């Protein structure tokens, strides 16, 4: 593979995946990626173009159904208020 992996790339990917890593872990990832690139070399120069053939698929009818009682789902909610699920703010007090 002529693609170069560096810590910057690993950090960018980690941010997209919503994961945090220490410096040491990021270095480990650089070598993990390199190790995997050796595996991916097996793909050779196969063309990335392919047709996706249609298949049989199950679709649903437009009839409402209550699959699970919503109270059963509420019981599993992390944090609730007045029927709403509560999530921490988009911005913290210290951010702009």
């Amino acid at each position, binding site marked *: 593979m002529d693609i170069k992996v560096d810590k910057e*790339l690993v950090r960018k*990917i980690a941010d997209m995946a919503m*994961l945090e890593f220490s410096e040491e872990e990021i270095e480990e*990832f650089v070598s993990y990626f390199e190790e995997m690139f050796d595996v991916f070399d097996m793909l050779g120069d196969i*063309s*990335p173009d*392919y047709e996706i053939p249609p298949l049989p698929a199950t679709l649903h009818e437009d009839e409402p159904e209550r699959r699970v009682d919503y109270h059963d789902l509420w019981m599993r909610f992390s944090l609730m208020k007045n029927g709403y699920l509560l999530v921490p703010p988009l911005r913290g007090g210290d951010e702009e």
Partner: protein
Amino acid sequence: MTIKELRKRFISGELTPLEYMEELLETIRQKERKINAFTHLEKTDTLLKEAELWTEKYKSGEELPPLAGIPVAIKDNIAVKDMPLTCASKILQEFTSPYDATAVRKLKEAGAIIIGKTNLDEFAMGSTTEFSIFGPTHNPVDLERVPGGSSGGSAASVAAGMVPVALGSDTGGSVRQPASFTDTVGIKPSYGMVSRYGLVAFASSLDQIGVLAKNVEDASLIIRVIAGKDKYDATSRELSVKNIFDAFETIDGVKIGVWKELDNHPAEDGVMKVWDDAIMKASKEFQMIPVSLPDIASGIASYYLIAPAEASANLARYDGVRYAWRVLDASTYKEMVKRTRTIGFGKEVKRRIMIGTFALSAGYQDAFYKKAVAMRYRIMQNFEEAFKQVDVILVPTSPKLPWKIGQKMSPSEVYKADLYTIPVNLAGLPAVSIPAGYVDNLPVGIQVIGKYGEDEKVWAVADKLMGLWR
């Protein structure tokens, strides 16, 4: 004792579901501490009560569903209503399922008793059942060794006689390889045969629920119960299976293919020796034809891009927002999600999320994900060509014998041990791993692989071969 025999005894009263359940619970009491096959066991009282109920019903002589009173274990990545659904991950440690997977619902409707949930590699990502918050599962054949994975808990529970059958899931060999490691039978059905509704997705286009049992008959019988198109799974298909207690189809004149390029990608010596013996024995009964599958070894590269890519999206829902566990002291949404995921996922899961996210990202998708998919189609064609000459194909299940728990291996070394099982998932084909012999008391399994939708034929051949090899 097979399920058919069990049912016969339940009906005759020679053995009651209650007595049988007590036997199993006793076995579990004796062995579970050392094996660690379960992540959750249903309360003894509940199990005994349920078994007693079936005992009464058998006594009354009424017509009972096919699996009435038969205990079944379920891999802990398959939803059972009101039981934990942890995937052996911290991130789902506190989660119980509000619904039954379709396969579980069908088992319950058939009268099965769900005995508990079995251990696995976190989110089914692994081949040793070591990467679990519940600790490693030990191989009943040799307690110092791994039972394989990721359905190691299911395989171990069956191998140890703690339960006659268990559901597993197979994304890249996760039913067949543990079957091979624990001297049991593992069926991976054609993709779409069994509904995935309620199976926690790892790699949706590869995942399929499978079964572990002591013999092909028991395993296939369970598949016959859980198979069928499901309105809750758009990828499910109606593929033909026989009625639950029907005999296997006749296999006169079946042609068996033997993978030609195995010599270029050989298993370790002991495995090869069992393989050679097995092929020789088989050739006395069947017409054996060498077939070429030139590209399937590249399946490793294809699989280790497609599976992580799909996983990176499938595991995005574990953000702490709606259910299960979340970091409570975060001041923003983003901080909460990041910290929840960072603490909640184990090392191997993070590796897969990272490589999968990378494989899909702008600028890299063509060189990685798309090439991997193109290779997948090529591997499908390999099989299509080969199946023009033969009905089934034999390939060893694993290139390695079960290794010691804690053995140091690099990630790619572990991944490469999936070489023989992965192509089957990439092509969506049915396969069974059956015991084929031993090396120094360690079991070796061989896979019987069939054409798409011809699961019954695969089972019939596998059953016959297992008889020859035992």
